[in-house]
């Protein structure tokens, strides 16, 4: 399998990262060499192997569904690049 430039532009779109043509060029080279390395896995027959979904010998704990924190709007908004006291602000989405 090889990744062509169109595919890389598509994946970059999915990942919400803008890439210019020069970047697509270098990414194509790098990602293809990485995928060549990754595809060594195809040598292995894994038909009868269960996928590993957790390395812990414990299942996830449950807890009471109750509020443990809150009323910290100021703290939550403190690091936002743009806000108006109560909300995060983004570029206009509805005309």
């Amino acid at each position, binding site marked *: 399998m090889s990744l062509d430039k169109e595919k890389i532009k598509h994946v970059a779109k999915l990942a919400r990262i803008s890439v210019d043509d020069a970047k697509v060029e270098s*990414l194509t080279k790098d990602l293809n060499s*990485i995928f060549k390395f990754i595809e*060594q896995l195809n040598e292995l027959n894994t038909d009868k192997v269960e996928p590993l979904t957790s390395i812990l010998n414990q299942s996830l704990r449950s807890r009471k569904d109750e509020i443990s924190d809150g009323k910290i709007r100021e703290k939550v908004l403190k690091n936002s690049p743009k806000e108006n006291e109560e909300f995060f602000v983004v*570029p206009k*989405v509805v005309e």
Partner: protein
Amino acid sequence: MADITNQSLNEIIENVKTKKVSSTDLTKAYIKNIESAKKLNAFVTTTFDQALDKAKQFDNKPNFDQLLPGIPLAVKDLFCTENTKTTAGSNILNNFIPSYESTVTKNLWNNGSFLLGKLNCDEFAMGSSNETSHYGNVINPVGDQLVPGGSSGGSSSALAADLTPATIGTDTGGSIRQPASFTGTVGLKPTYGLCSRWGIVAFASSLDQAGPMTKTIKDCAIMLESMSGFDEKDSTSINKKKEQYSKNLKDNIEGLKIGIPKEYRVDNMPKEVDELWEKGKKILKDLGAQLIDISLPHTKYALPTYYIVAPAEASSNLARYDGVRYGYRSKQGKDLIEMYEKTRSEGFGDEVKRRILIGTYVLSSGYYDAYYLKAQKVRQLIKKDFDDSFTKIDAILTPSTPSSAFKIGEKTNDPVSMYLNDIFTVPVNLAGLPALSMPAGVDKQGYPLGLQLIGKALDEQKILNIGYAFEKNCGFKNEIKKWWS
């Protein structure tokens, strides 16, 4: 008194307890070292005023019963620290000031220590040389052209240069053990779930673990004891009784069975790495341990598996950096989508982008089974290799890295050659096991090399004990000339 900063953490603690040095004088000594070591670029942020305040508070009202009484500590800049900037080595977090403290650092402070500064690291812990940091390369004190390893490169450099008495890093595929090996220091990646991940900037959540980086094994035990413990805020935290690793440290390893895996070698591995491994085997054997040849047949598939699993998890974790709620926001972008795209393009560096794209691709529709599911199956086989071996042995001895520290720029143009650095460390993360890198010798250039001890899950005490016995009999001394000051 003689320079206190070149002593081990344990010695420093004794000196504080016996009032040979005050916390304030200790802190001042480290500040002096840090100010004269700017060339190493180990720090992203320093918190000297705050540290001196805490030291003064300690000296006025000392509590010597704590594990880390009045000890200043610098930590990797991946741990969120309340009201102190936390960058994760990235431009996208260049203005991020957490309003909360990570559990692991909070545990350290609750044991009597306080923050001295935040240490440089590869961006989002993605790298093996500290060259992907937005805040510049970190220099290895061993040599002015050498990388300190990565991703906890600021941590290893600061520790080896006496800029902090001990430190903590994170290890997703070798990010504690490889830099420890490159700087002649000790680094431990604990069992997955032993140290809370809460408040640590996430990279690959099923692999990430925080751990200590220290000058000696005893120090490592003290730090692990201080930072570990159950945390209900981390859903994968293990709920078990706290261990007293330092008190229970023993150097008797007679009768222990040490596995030697035949697969832990690479083409063109320098002969010093092999020789050092032989030396390590001999030391353990002379101490009464029994060496047993084992096979971990899927070792060569660990790195390819890692480069599916880790980017897949990273692409999901890093989706949160959108320029809306915190962090950097691009000035460009006429609509919401374009703002996201520009923010992430300008905010992330090249290696992070590569990994997000790999992860996005392997998780995308039509490719999931071929890559991610396949990798999870191979991960099962890798774990089974360890499980099978550990029915007949107590621990495994391997080299930590296939080479010593390399030169800055030597591997930056070839991602795969950079990835190969982690070939001996990555399998442990995939299996969730604890592993220790301990300094063992130097290569022909005089650069440090480490050996790795891998233990069963939650068997940290045993690998610390083996390391303790090894350290006493190895005769390694880290001779670093302070060329930078």
